[in-house]
């Protein structure tokens, strides 16, 4: 579908532009965020989720768009979260920002991208071993907060409240924005 290519390209350009402008592609700012010096980027991320969740409710009501819940696996998602956090803290890039930062011309991001391709290749090689071993046994399925709080709306209210509290908390605990 060529319209999907154009939509993907357009969305990517806009996304890459915005994350550069807020400083998320700058590993120096990312490190300062992780060290609790600058709170701007984590607050940006959490507010973007909060607003998107409200926007998505609107799309649901109007019946537009497509959602897809990624299953939660207690063990696999847990191990992945720990490893991902270590890698993110070490290099200051995450998969999306490496593309935009490499586009900026940051050479260290080009190496993060190459490392990412190598890590992807290794996982693809061992997928048949690791998914049955780590992911499948504790796979809780496509659960959402709506399963816990009874309705989509109640769950969204909880999410907005928790994220708003986190944004305020970062404002208090980090040294500056």
């Amino acid at each position, binding site marked *: 579908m060529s319209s999907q*290519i154009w939509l*993907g390209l357009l969305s*990517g*350009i*806009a*996304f*890459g532009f915005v*994350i*550069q*402008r*807020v400083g998320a592609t700058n*590993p*120096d700012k990312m*490190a300062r965020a992780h060290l609790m010096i600058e709170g*701007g980027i984590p*607050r940006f*991320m959490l507010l*973007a*989720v*909060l*607003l998107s*969740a409200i926007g998505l409710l609107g*799309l649901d009501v109007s019946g537009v*768009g*497509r*959602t*897809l*819940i990624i299953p*939660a696996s207690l063990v696999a*998602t847990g191990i992945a*979260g*720990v490893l*991902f956090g270590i890698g*993110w*803290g070490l290099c*200051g*890039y*995450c*998969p*999306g920002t490496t593309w*935009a930062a490499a*586009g900026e*011309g*940051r*050479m*260290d991001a080009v190496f*993060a*991208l190459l*490392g*990412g*391709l190598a*890590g*992807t290749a290794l*996982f*693809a090689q061992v997928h048949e071993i690791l998914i049955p071993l780590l*992911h499948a046994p504790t796979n809780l399925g496509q*659960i*959402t907060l*709506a399963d816990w709080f009874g309705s989509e709306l109640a769950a969204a209210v909880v999410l907005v409240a928790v994220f708003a509290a986190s944004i305020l908390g970062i404002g208090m605990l980090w040294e500056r*924005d």
Partner: protein
Amino acid sequence: MDKNQLSPPYWKWVSAAFALAGIIVFVFATFGPPASSSGFVAVLKGAIAPVAPDYVEAKAHYRMSAGPGAWVFAFVLGMAIGGFIAARTFPAPVRDIPEIWEKRFGSSRIKRYAATFAGGFVILFASRLTGGCTLGLFISGSTQLAVSGLYFGVLIFAFAMLTARIVYGRAGKEGQ
């Protein structure tokens, strides 16, 4: 950056978050949940398929993933283009080694590139294990109220903060 220069004109987090949320909702409306780690798989699949079509056909991870010509492939290339345009129209110089890293570990390119290669390797291996990254799992997932995204989000922030403290030590706090 020199202390005497004006600090680079980064966007404020509130306005940037409105801009990003607008893009995310647009993506949900026109495609589905945005993702970027699967873009790595699409790129690899496109690179390997012409050379070793049997391998790509045999491996579940490539079979279940989109290839070149798919939305995610265009999205990650678009992000690189967006980053390129943004950097060309931004006054701060683009650095190959971040200031905070240089202060702690010196200006060795080999050391920095080895660290980002290792970091990139680990974050993509982890992302593929659980089916998403900061965008594809934490942001997309939490937007859809998914427990997987929130669980992943808590862990990545906690362990990145811990790791940054170990990596930068007190150097991170000096000379701000």
